[in-house]
């Protein structure tokens, strides 16, 4: 493992994308970063701009008006990147998802428009679960980073 691949595992930065949830998962996500669980021990930090992020943490079922924003934020995250969907709504739309007839306002899980790598189910998942999901995301990130060609344009 090269030094840069190692550094990628050591300092994953999160960008928290809230797309139309009830705030339950957001509170639990922030609890994972607060004193009790303190993810900064392992270099995990919350960043303010998607351009700085490695891991996109999404919560909530996506309202239809929010689709372009989700796509845009996803495209703003530089490669290699991983998306972690947190909560029942982000995993499958939960009770807001309707196939036939389609819900007039809610699309459902963000995996209908962007590729999601890790799912953390629960309503709301506990901080331990969220940290476990982020660790799975870091492992995928390391695999993506080392398989990437160095001389891409």
């Amino acid at each position, binding site marked *: 493992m090269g*030094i*840069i*691949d*190692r*550094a*990628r*595992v*050591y*300092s994953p*930065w999160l960008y928290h994308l809230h797309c139309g949830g009830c705030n339950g998962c957001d509170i639990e996500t922030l609890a994972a970063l*607060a*004193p009790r669980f*303190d993810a*900064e*021990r*392992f*270099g995990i930090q919350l*960043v*303010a*701009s998607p*351009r*700085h992020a*490695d891991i996109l943490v999404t919560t909530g079922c996506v309202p239809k008006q929010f689709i372009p924003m989700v796509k845009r934020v996803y495209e*703003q995250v*530089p*490669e*290699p990147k991983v998306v972690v969907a947190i909560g029942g709504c982000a995993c499958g739309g939960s009770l807001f998802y309707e196939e036939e007839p389609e819900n007039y306002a809610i699309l459902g899980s963000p995996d209908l428009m962007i590729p999601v790598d890790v799912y953390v189910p629960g309503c709301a998942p506990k901080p331990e679960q969220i940290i476990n999901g982020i660790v799975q995301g870091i492992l995928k990130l390391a695999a993506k*980073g080392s398989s990437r060609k160095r001389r*891409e344009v």
Partner: protein
Amino acid sequence: MADPVITTIEIILMVPVALILGVLFLFLFRKLNARFQWRVGPVIRMYSDLAPLIGKTRIWQPLYDILKLFGKDTIITDVAHRRLFVYSPYFSLLFAISAAFFIPFPGMELLSSVPYSLVIASYLIISSILFTILGPVASGSPWGAIGARREVELFLVSELSFVLSIFSIALSSGTLVISEIAGRGWSAPSILLSLTSGLLLFVAMLGKLHIKPFDMPEAEAEIVAGPYTEYSGKLLGIYFLSKTFLTYVLVALFIALILPPASTSIFWLPAWAFAAMVLVFLLTVVQVLNPRYRINNALYWYVKVVIPVGLVSFIIAFFIRVVA
């Protein structure tokens, strides 16, 4: 001036030394910050069951952050002024590294004995910060522009404090050469001068390193990431590297100017290290105790505090120069 061969070796040696010390200062800053917030912060000794997987220590966490950014894609937006956007981080880094060459380190005189080295060092520090303003302005992002504007306003007042401090010390010792200032003796009025101009330099450091009451250029909750909003990958890594060097430069300059003999000889190294740790500790205390000022409050505060203290500092310096 010393032997050119020795000076060249010292300059080559200075780059890794400054980088390592800058990373350690930033680590200490993050760790103390976390401890004040009742968190653990980046762990010094990793838990034994996790150590084989994710490394033995996180003392080098700021360096890992930079290395990781070097391994990521760099996105350049269409609206950016491409050339200025790409080259600004490199110039900022270049000036920050070259500022380190003009500041003495215990056992290494470097270029601090060249004439007017104090003026050269302060100009290099200013230029480094100037390029952290130019790049974001060229990025074409409104958040970058707001961050850069706040940075300019903060820069003007913190520069006032910086200049008042270093030139009152220069006036008292009658020289503009850092190595002569760093080797000056102590007397009762010079202790008083160290207190007033030390306070001014400390306040200037708060503004230049964006520490809490004055972190409005990078205010996350309001303007995304401020000047760095559009930067990603390698260019962001270079900005962080430049900030690492700047942290070392400001701490070393503080010790060289305010605590005289500590940067002259290798035997003072433990005292230098202790002083640097205390300085980083004080910066952290200020960071954790304060909320973020609005930009107009910060300007008003600087003018209200810095100008009277600067005047007192100049009067003491004048007294030392004329009487002593």
